[in-house]
């Protein structure tokens, strides 16, 4: 009995010490990590999607609260008109969430570009969703409405070979992005009017 109590006490103390330490470090590095993510992960994706925009999309961003979640929208100005926005959504991949950035042209609801931002997929297999530009290129100019599904599920998306789960995750994220866009379009249009 005494031994058992000792085991429980030791494990409890260790765990709480560990939890406290991690919470402290997490707090200390939170801001730094956010900046790093914006520059290294989302930055390139945003700039690639809104390529040729005459403004700086990362600086010209606005926030809309959607169902309790604050979402960042990045504005792209083309031909002197703020006609495109890029925003993030995510879907479940093979290991953890896959975050994607979707750029959409608000005049005809077509996809300007898609880029994978954060993921923890298997390097060399699922990670191709990010490293192989031909995968996300297939979404360009498609309308951002309805649901996206990989071909083996009866949809229209060409899956990455060997990474069906990852491709499914990206498709789910795109479907979600479509839903978010549909919900928030009036607000986005309002914000863009103000921006002009």
């Amino acid at each position, binding site marked *: 009995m005494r*031994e058992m109590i*000792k*085991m429980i006490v*030791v*494990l409890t103390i*260790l*765990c709480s010490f*560990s939890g406290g*330490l*991690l919470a402290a*470090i*997490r707090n200390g*590095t939170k801001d*730094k*990590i956010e900046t*790093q*993510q914006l*520059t*290294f*992960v989302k930055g390139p994706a945003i700039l690639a999607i809104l390529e040729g925009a005459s403004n700086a999309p990362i600086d010209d961003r606005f926030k809309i609260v959607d169902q309790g979640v604050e979402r960042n929208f990045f504005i792209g100005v083309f031909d002197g008109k703020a006609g495109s926005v890029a925003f993030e959504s995510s879907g479940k991949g093979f*290991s953890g969430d896959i975050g994607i950035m979707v750029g959409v042209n608000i005049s005809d609801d077509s996809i300007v570009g898609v880029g994978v931002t954060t993921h*923890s997929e*298997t*390097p*060399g297999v699922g*990670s191709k969703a990010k490293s192989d530009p031909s995968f996300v290129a297939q979404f360009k100019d498609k309308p951002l409405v309805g649901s996206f599904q990989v071909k083996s599920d009866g949809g229209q998306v060409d899956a990455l070979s060997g990474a069906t789960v990852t491709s499914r995750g990206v498709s789910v994220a795109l479907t979600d992005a479509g839903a978010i866009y549909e919900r928030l379009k009036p607000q986005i249009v309002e914000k863009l009017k103000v921006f002009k």
Partner: protein
Amino acid sequence: MAKTIAQEFTKGLWSEIPPFRLVLGLCPVLAVTKTVENGIGMGLATTFVLVCSNILVSSLRKAIPNKVRIACFIIIIATFVTVVELVMQAYTYPLFLKLGIFIPLIVVNCIVLGRSEAFAFKNGVVASFADGLGMGIGFTLSLAALGAVRELFGSGTLTIWETPIQIFGPSFQPFTFMIEAPGAFICLGLMLCVMNMTEK
């Protein structure tokens, strides 16, 4: 344990160098050594975890009940791995992205758990520190060497501080298989072979 502190340190560098002599922790060894830089980064992260967990395990070894020692080791190791993960995210973000899932997987790296179980739980703090540091540096050097060979033949470059340096001329045809999984096994096998030959 008649060994001196210096011996505890140096054994990790050659006579018990982790991936080659102990043939432990091969998962990250084979997976991340596509470039020198990845190898060094992974090695340093593992070294940090090894040293910290060895110190903590050896200083708590009298308090930890024998029956739950593995659970305690894992808590300690997992804590330090998460520390590494957060710090890497905050300061060396591009490297963190390249190593990806293999950073959290240090938790289940046999070398780290193996040193806690086989060494730190039975030895003093200073000896455990020397052991962890030696093993960690040995691991880093092995990963760097493996990464250097694979990168050199697999892509004809050596990456240091984010800049790939071309070693061979532009006419060099890289042996692409060297940066894929089979190349990792073959390369590790050949290096093991050379090490065993020098021993004889």
